[in-house]
């Protein structure tokens, strides 16, 4: 096989990443930005340049939704397909654009100009429907805006020349508490810690006293994670910020990264101080979801400002030995990468498949080194604790869930956006604040969380009651919850990484059964199959995705059962009528009572 030489632009991409195979996902992403897709000879050439087996490069590229191994059109328009986008009319808008551009959903047009399809939630639920055009987010899709976009595509105008207004994204915050109360001053929390804490142990104790728990949803005690990592031996200790906010309906990390970048970065730096005790080497990484590509330059300049201010780099705040910097890594469309070990695989340039555990990331994480992976909001909370103290933090929230929580409120309400509450707030209070009348249900924590109905609106947002990573999606009385859940079931089938049997096949079976019921051909037997699959998925799935993928179905079945059963064509029933008994008179007339004069259900079946 003769391999064409790489173009100077590609050589530059490779050089920028030091021809480092662990940068493979970044290299593929940037190579695609140049070529529009990843043709087979390019895969061969990159494999050779990175000294990787070709299968590794191709297999990695094939994993991510936003990497294309076939020509994908000069304009790739992806409609966010969260249930909130649909509630805002995304399906009709997609059809409109297809018609206008003579395109078919999911297929590149004959002239190679445009490709229109759906994608998983893009995190613009507060201003949807959301779109991605060649990876760039566009909010508030409407007939008018899509007409404009169609025109720009037909004129073949480069994206750089499109009106900036199209890409303008708001970051509405409607309620502020501990975290969002005041704009953070860069370096203040760091200075406070460095003034009286020689090795990070003081800060660690403070985070422990504050009772901070991870904000990704699982609620693992942050101090315990940091302490285990700090104790683990390693050449470098890594601080990884999980900004792969993929749970449908969640967007609070987008707002934090856009409006509170310094708080996030400060929290990561504080974590590094604890892990390295201000002496041993530490390094930071932010895994930013591909859908948030528009935040990349903003974050890069925030990092540059902090470097210039001595808050990143060598001898932070003048403390000799306290060296720490942060690298940005962009995802390429894979919900499963929000799972921390899948995220680490992706950071290492591989397919985002969750690892076998143990060992855990705190001892064997990024590149096998001790690693803390925390959610964006967790780092912010750590910075607030360092600045205001553990007692002030504990004063908010509940005993088991101290502090505050950011909620991404969207759906059928007057004021969608980010709301920060002390833990313990009831669903009802949030509904009142966001202007949601007559809600019939709320999805707390996204599809992998809990779907609650009105009789549970006095339940509390807290780890001990309704745990959540932040999504709060409101459904008004006009919504069909069966269709809501079907949308979620499709989401999980699309996002299952396919590694393990129960999740790969299970999510696809669930999708098939839900579609069958949707088509009016469901029966009781289908509900039994749903339960059989759910048991297998909960018991044996490799990671949280598969274990929680059945939650919406579970809630539909247990809390909204009539909504589900209404859709069935028939409920299995045992007939009261007894065929064999009905023949008794005939037997009497003929004087027969042998076996062949009897009907048995088993002989009937054969």
């Amino acid at each position, binding site marked *: 096989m003769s391999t064409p030489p790489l173009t100077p632009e590609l050589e530059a991409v490779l050089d920028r990443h030091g021809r480092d195979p662990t940068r493979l996902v970044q290299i593929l992403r940037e190579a695609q930005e140049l070529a529009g897709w990843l043709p087979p000879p390019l895969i061969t050439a990159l494999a050779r340049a990175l000294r990787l087996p*070709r*299968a590794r490069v191709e*297999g990695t590229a094939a994993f991510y939704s936003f990497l294309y191994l076939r020509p994908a059109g000069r304009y790739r328009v992806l409609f966010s397909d969260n249930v909130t986008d649909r509630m805002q009319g995304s399906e009709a808008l997609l059809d409109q654009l297809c018609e206008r551009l003579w395109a078919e959903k999911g297929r590149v047009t004959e002239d190679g100009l445009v490709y229109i399809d759906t994608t998983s939630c893009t995190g613009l639920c507060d201003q949807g429907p959301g779109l991605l055009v060649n990876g760039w987010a566009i909010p508030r899709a409407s007939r008018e805006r899509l007409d404009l976009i169609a025109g720009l595509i037909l004129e073949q105008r480069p994206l750089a020349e499109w009106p900036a207004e199209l890409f303008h994204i708001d970051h509405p915050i409607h309620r502020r508490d501990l975290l969002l109360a005041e704009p953070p001053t860069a370096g203040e929390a760091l200075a406070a810690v460095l003034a009286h804490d020689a090795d990070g142990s003081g800060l660690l104790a403070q985070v422990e006293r504050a009772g901070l728990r991870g904000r990704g949803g699982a609620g693992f005690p942050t101090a315990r994670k940091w302490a285990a990592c700090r104790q683990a031996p390693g050449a470098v200790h890594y601080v990884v910020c999980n900004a792969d906010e993929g749970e449908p309906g969640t967007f609070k990390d987008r707002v934090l990264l856009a409006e509170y970048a310094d708080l996030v970065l400060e929290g990561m730096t504080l974590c590094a101080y604890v892990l390295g005790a201000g002496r041993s080497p530490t390094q930071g990484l932010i895994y930013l979801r591909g859908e948030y590509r528009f935040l990349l330059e903003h974050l890069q300049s925030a990092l540059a400002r902090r470097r210039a201010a001595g808050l990143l780099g060598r001898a932070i705040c003048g403390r000799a030995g306290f060296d720490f910097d942060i690298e940005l890594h962009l995802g390429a469309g894979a919900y499963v990468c929000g799972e921390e070990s899948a995220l680490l695989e992706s950071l290492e340039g591989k397919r985002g498949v969750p690892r076998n555990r143990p060992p855990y990331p705190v001892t064997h994480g990024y590149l096998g080194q001790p690693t803390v992976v925390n959610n964006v909001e967790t780092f912010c909370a750590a910075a607030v604790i360092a600045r205001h103290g553990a007692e002030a933090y504990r004063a908010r929230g509940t005993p088991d869930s101290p502090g505050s929580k950011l909620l991404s409120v969207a759906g059928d309400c007057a004021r969608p956006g980010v709301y920060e509450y002390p833990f313990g707030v009831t669903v009802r209070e949030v509904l009142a604040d966001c202007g949601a009348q007559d809600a019939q249900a709320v999805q707390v924590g996204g599809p992998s969380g809990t779907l609650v109905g009105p009789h549970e609106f006095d339940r509390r947002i807290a780890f001990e009651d309704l745990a959540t990573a932040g999504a709060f999606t409101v459904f008004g009385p006009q919504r069909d919850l069966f269709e809501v859940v079907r949308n979620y079931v499709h989401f999980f089938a*699309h996002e299952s*990484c396919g590694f*393990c049997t129960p999740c790969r*096949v299970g999510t696809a079976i669930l999708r098939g059964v839900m579609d069958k019921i949707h088509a009016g051909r469901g029966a009781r037997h289908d509900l039994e199959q749903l339960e*059989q699959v759910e048991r*297998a998925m909960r018991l044996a799935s*490799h990671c949280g995705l598969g274990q929680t993928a059945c939650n919406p179905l579970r809630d539909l079945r247990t809390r909204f059962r009539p909504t589900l059963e209404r859709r069935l064509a028939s409920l299995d029933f045992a007939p009261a009528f007894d065929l064999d008994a009905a023949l008794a008179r005939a037997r009497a007339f003929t004087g027969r009572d042998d076996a062949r004069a009897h009907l048995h259900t088993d002989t009937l079946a054969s």
Partner: protein
Amino acid sequence: MNTRLSFLLDGAEVPFTPGQSVIQAALAAGRYIPHLCYHPEFTPHGSCKLCTVRADGRPAAACTLPARAGLQVDSETEELRALRRTLVQMLFAEGNHFCPSCEKSGNCVLQSLGYDLEVHTAGFRHFFLDRPVDASHPDILLDFNRCVLCRLCVRASEEVDGKGVFYLGGRGVQRRLLVSSESGRLADTDIAVTDKAVEVCPVGVILRKHVGFAVPIGRRRYDVKPLRERALEDAPRGEEGTHG
């Protein structure tokens, strides 16, 4: 001698040496745990989940679970048997498996698992995925219809043959076995019929041409002895586990 390390499998003691997984120790001790993607010669993958057990109450794949002294492992419970039957049904529904016409019948691990677990039908609606065969290579046929995504051929090609002929691409139910060449065809790779990757396929995806049905059905590997006996025969044994 220091005291022998052991854990409990369904209440009976199983000895192990440090570094062994639960399934390695169990098989070496003559105790069968159903499995599909696990193979004693390769790095465990932990993806088929057939070997799921409860260890101290928590579900875990026995092939990636390190053996630990005092661990209480449950395997032959009704819950886990039901799980394994569901998983085998899932694999039969996902792929296009027609045992009577398959050259691998009698030598196939999936088929034998079906018999072993008494799975008589797929139970679920078949997916009927479109998976064209690759007959480009003069000596090797690829029938992707039967792939169970165990990744054994990928592992063998990478770890033993040093070639990297295969990879798994796609996500979710689109995940499938692919050939890494610019054309995507097996003929354009450096695979040889003697490669470990060709030999290791537990189902009927990677087949040698020219030797079809050389051994008649009825006299094949799992026709002669059931899967669980074969698995125990194949298990590598240290001196610790040879009593079985």
